[in-house]
């Protein structure tokens, strides 16, 4: 048991260290206009850096946004959920795919808009995501491949969240019921 605990602590602190270092390195690259970007997530994740987590948070909210019916992926904490799964993963290739996928989003945004995703206007961001989603049936480019993975995990995270199940889907089960079953008799 001692071994397990020790290992756990060590690996956690290593992750935190890497995240902190990456955040520190990334910070000076961000221009002052970052402050005006909507809803930036200031903190670094367990695996993702602060800028990466902010980018993921915005992407998930664009995929499942808040509407007049229910809050969206941001309120449901989808980005933090994905970050948590990445952090505890034992598959470095999968982790690396997310990191490079997020970079590819910024890359595509620079190509289309001349600046990183979070510095682009809402319309420009939409154009980037629309381009990424164009190959959803048969993804080809790296951003297109990343979109299918991003959407799969956003969907998974959102529709297993309290907001997704209870507020958006209005799921009626998993509580004790009174009276008859709903539905029709067989006749």
């Amino acid at each position, binding site marked *: 048991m001692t071994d397990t605990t020790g290992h756990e602590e060590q690996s956690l602190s290593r992750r935190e260290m890497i995240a902190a270092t990456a955040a520190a390195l990334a910070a000076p690259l961000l221009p002052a206009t970052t402050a005006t970007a909507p809803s930036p997530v200031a903190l670094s994740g367990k695996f993702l850096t602060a800028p990466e987590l902010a980018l993921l948070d915005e992407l998930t909210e664009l995929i499942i946004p808040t*509407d007049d019916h229910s809050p969206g992926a941001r309120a449901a904490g989808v980005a933090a959920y994905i970050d948590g799964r990445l952090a505890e993963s034992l598959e470095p290739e999968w982790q690396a795919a997310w990191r490079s996928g997020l970079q590819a989003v910024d890359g595509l945004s620079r190509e289309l808009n001349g600046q990183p995703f979070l510095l682009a206007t809402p319309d420009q961001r939409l154009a980037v995501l629309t381009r990424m989603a164009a190959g959803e049936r048969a993804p080809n480019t790296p951003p297109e491949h990343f979109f299918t993975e991003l959407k799969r995990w956003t969907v998974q995270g959102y529709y297993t969240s309290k907001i997704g199940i209870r507020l958006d*889907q209005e799921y009626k*089960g998993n509580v004790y*019921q009174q009276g008859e*079953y*709903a*539905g029709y008799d*067989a006749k």
Partner: protein
Amino acid sequence: MTLVRVPPPLQQDVDLSQTYDAVIVGSGAAGGMAAHVLTSRGLRVLMLEAGKKLDINQELRSMQWPYDHPRRGDAPPGSHALSFNEYTIRQPPYAKGSAFKHVYSYVGGWGGSDYVKNILVDEKDHPYTGSNYAWVRARCLGGKTNIWGRLALRLSDYDYKAKSHDGYGEDWPISYADIAPYYDKVDLYLGISGVKENLPHLPDSQFQRPTKLNFGEVKLRHSLAEMGRVLTPYRAGVTTDGVKHNKYRSKCYGRGACDRRPGGCDIHAAFDSPTGLIYPAMDTGHLTIRPNSIAYEVLIDRNTGRARGVAFLDNLTRTPYEAKARVVILAASTLESARLLLLSRSPQHPNGLGNTSGHVGHNFCEHVMGPGVTGLVKEMVGKPRTLDDGRPGGFYVPRFRNLTDRQPGFIRGYGFEGNSGHSMFPAHTNTPGFGAEFKKTVRDHASAFISMGGFGEVLPRYESFVDLDPEVKDSWGIPVLRFHYQFSDNERKMAEDMNTTAREMFEAAGIEVVGADRKTLTEGWSIHELGTARMGSDPKTSVLNQFQQSHDVRNLFVVDGSSHVSASCQNPTWTIMALAWRSCEYLADEFRKGGGNL
């Protein structure tokens, strides 16, 4: 009625110096039923279970919300569930060389996989070899009944006398009239929900209150009736009105989330062997359970040729022990019981115990599955939510092929299991796009889908068999099974017909087909393996008589699915329990008479 949440003591003193009246290997549907019948008749019984005696409520956590679990129900990193592709492309043993710490059967990939990690075996410890086969094994008290699909069907004389009907295979040594009273006993003791349909090929049970159909299902039922086919509410091995004689089980409250099979049913309205059979048997004072006991040989008295007990290894310490008994009952599952018979080789039984016929391990059969359709019930788009997930299942479409007709391509038949309406996780998330429109589409369509998949009878063939691998052993040094088994042309033709009729039925009902699964799933996928020690009246071509008693060794019984002569297309659990009840009554009668026939 107060539900007793505390099971009988999990730790018992096990006295291996005494000779028990009976030792039972296995604690699932068959072993549980044997324990119930024999202890209620006053026999002193020892039950050996290879796995742990889990606190099943702690394992299942039926009402835990996904968001209250750190991985939303997924198993921790390092665990892997085998996929259809792995089963298809690779060869057993599937976990060999895997980088994952734990490898589970495909059931470990069901939603809520974290809840089955202590129930399913780790494929790394439990290899098998030979042909492709998705073998799902649960080693714990109650076995697979803790997470079963709950469809509880009877067989009819279309099954028991199938050879008389179409000339293939063998008839069973019993007819429906012989087993019907025992189906009744199982119904009344455990509770079953459903609707009477008066079908000769799917006899009715002693039903409790049925679950209801939803809009799409009623629509399909009406349309099928015009075609002379039937859609009936899921016949579930679930007590909907309660079973007053059992203090460990509650009636069904229709609360959900019943789609999540790995979540089980923590109020035990759905039948499971521990609360339905084993705990009440323990309360008689006649049942002793020894968990962590891996049986590896049925012991034979060299002088009399009779079974004298079972040799087993302690799962944890690997110490070998012997359990002594006057009668040995195998209920370890179709494949594990066959393995145990084959492992029990001796000078008197060089081909394995009870195997003078050479049929142990042979005539292996099950259900073929895979083909199915998903349809859109457009009237339901945008409609308010209903609790469709508070039902143990949706519906069942009984067999309609080769009853009065004769299909050109195949013999026997298939049924469809189906479901529709709202579930906890919405169905339409694979719709393309993103944004507000995507979100609204998913929401509007969440209750509007109906789907069903076929389960078809696989023919028993002598050439379909398992034997012992001469080299490969499991983690306890016990030789493993080697599979020689694959679907034949009859199953392939039948699966093609399932594809056609499934689509046809939806379209006739005005349900737009939006998805179709055409592929046949890997052998084993139905988890309905049967037939490896079949019953029969001729000892030359069968292993057991009509009371599941070995032709060769009279005090040896095999009361699980291995005794089935053919697979039928109906799910086997209820028949396994009815047969075990009948055989154990015979056994107890003979025991009281002095055991002359044992």
